């Protein structure tokens, strides 16, 4: 059962959908693993993870967007979360991503981030997007750069402390990459 009014987004290998009850254990396992979760922050214990999860659902209701659950089409399993995050105190709406254990190395975050970015630009009408990345999170920096984002500035995040802000190419950047069309084959096939 969907807990939000999130749309279901389709891409080549993935479905992005709203959070559901069955996703919670995967999310709690992610938060419980400090090696994976330190760059995301927010929840060290299972109760903290529950609180964050409820918060994400409320985020959808307040803003009309939030973190999708990334579902692996092949297995139906939750493979991570990806979406737009904008609590009070955030510098700007942020495109964020997390890949759960066992799903790395398959380009899932890249594909999901492209799809969520296209959704933000085409469906939500966003004109720009950022990603906030903690210094030292080299994997996320590499992905941000692969997505065409560029480092803009450092700032103090209300929750995470010293943080780096990357800015994504806008909807009018003139490339298919900006709209993520190179993942669903619809444009790239003719490019």
């Amino acid at each position, binding site marked *: 059962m969907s807990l939000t009014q999130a749309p279901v987004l389709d891409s080549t290998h993935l479905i992005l959908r709203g959070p559901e009850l069955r996703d919670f254990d995967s999310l709690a396992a992610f938060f419980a693993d400090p090696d994976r979760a330190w760059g995301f922050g927010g929840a060290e214990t299972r109760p903290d993870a529950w609180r964050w999860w409820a918060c994400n*659902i409320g985020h959808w209701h*307040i803003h009309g967007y939030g973190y999708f659950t990334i579902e692996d089409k092949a297995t139906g399993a939750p493979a991570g979360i990806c979406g737009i995050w904008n609590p009070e105190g955030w510098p700007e709406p942020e495109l964020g991503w997390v890949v759960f254990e066992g799903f790395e190395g398959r380009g899932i975050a890249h594909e999901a981030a492209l799809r969520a970015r296209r959704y933000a630009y085409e469906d939500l009408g966003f004109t720009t997007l950022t990603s906030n990345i903690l210094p030292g999170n080299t994997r996320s920096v590499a992905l941000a750069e692969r997505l065409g984002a560029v480092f803009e500035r450092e700032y103090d995040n209300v929750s995470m402390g010293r943080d780096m802000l990357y800015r994504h190419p806008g909807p009018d950047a003139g490339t298919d990459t900006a709209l993520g069309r190179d993942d669903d084959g619809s444009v790239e096939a003719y490019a």
Partner: protein
Amino acid sequence: MSNYPDIPVIETRRLVLRGPEAGDYPDFKATFASYRSRFMGGPLNAYEAWMLYAAEIGHWAVRGFGMWMIHDKLTDETYGMAGGWFPAKWPEREIAWIIWPDKAGRGYALEATHAVRRRFYERQGWEGAVSYIDPKNLDSIRLAERLGCVKDREAATIDGSDAVYRHPSPSAAASGQLRDGIELEIAHYCDPMFKPKGMPID
């Protein structure tokens, strides 16, 4: 955004209780930034208050119950929140309340909490409930006792720093002695000639 999930509306003599909506957030934020919130994990900064408010809404979707926003029936002004709260880590389902600091002393918490407990018991099948209260939160302890709660020293606490007040069972809460007493007190507050003296109570 619509008021999804579908949250029932409860009407009482002076109040209407509706699901928390984005537009109600500023009053919530002001209260959680204030000293009033010291027994509820506050004071919180703006980010923390927003995250908690979003979780209040998410709680409804996940649990099927949650905290209602208390509005004045005539003016729609908000006075606080009351309802059920059962996040992970909570040993039992809690009946909780918070009244904005400048709205205390008019019996709104009593009126709202009495109504939500009745709904949980009579419409949603709850067989009991507790309230977790900081032992220094005398206003809330007095409200719990006016609602017929009894301190339960054997019950599991959230983290050892809170006292557990156990609500009367559904049959005890429905008994004339308790219910009539609560409703008489609410009626006093509804009476414009009633001017309570001494410390304000919620």
